[in-house]
């Protein structure tokens, strides 16, 4: 079996990213859309950490830590918005978020 190179990790990250994009674009449940966004962020993190091995210095890992921090902040605010929306409309369907539709 051929040795595991950086390319293998990039392929896994690309597949994770594609799965996250499919989840964001096709699901109706807002919570699952938010979870697919977390999948996308994780794919980016895997890319960063895989590339940080190739050069001296751990810059990719520092960036990955900052991305995880950002993901936490964004998940908190996004879920707060979801709770506010659910309180008004009693549904978590993405198709019913159409108050601004013309």
């Amino acid at each position: 079996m051929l040795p595991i190179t950086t390319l293998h990790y990039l392929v896994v990250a690309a597949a994770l990213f594609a799965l996250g994009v499919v989840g964001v674009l096709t699901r109706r449940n807002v919570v699952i859309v938010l979870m697919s966004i977390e999948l996308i962020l994780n794919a980016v993190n895997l890319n960063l950490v895989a590339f940080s091995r190739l050069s001296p210095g751990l810059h990719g890992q520092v960036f990955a830590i900052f991305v995880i921090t950002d993901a936490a902040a964004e998940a908190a605010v996004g879920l707060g918005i979801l709770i506010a929306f659910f309180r008004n409309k009693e549904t978590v369907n993405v198709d019913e978020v159409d108050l601004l539709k013309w």
Partner: protein
Amino acid sequence: MTPVATPFFFYFLSVLTLGSAFLVITSRNAVHSALALILALLGQAGLYLMLYAPFVAGVQIILYAGGIMVLFLFVIMLVNLERSQKEEQYSRQWLAGALAATALGVLFVAVFVKGKALFPASSVPVAESSNTQQLGQLLYGPYMFAFEIASLLLLVAIIGAVVMAKKRI
């Protein structure tokens, strides 16, 4: 410490991560999706360990799987989702979404096939015993400004989440 059975662990962890990610986007029950996402995050922490990044793996398990996913599960329990389980699960534009994701996948494959020479196979060996110290020196040295901005971002996110979820501002 010499690595042992690297291909087996890599393929096992990536199949675990990708399979759980697939379960995340296809589950009918949101709680099942959340549990599958926790499994995907744990598999990814294993991949970080294989890439000699133990601190990022620890942060991933504690923060992501232990913090963010618990937050998701609390919100899923707050938002009563029994009615949404019986509804239509995929939006009306599911075909457009699937086509867009397929185009993205083809783009990725083209990049990997054409640019295979750009990704070097060898990597710089780093000692994993000093990983946390090096990360700490980087965070308090060159990345000090980004560190402070990240703490400000967390403060804003806390205030924003509380304001968003309040009944009356």
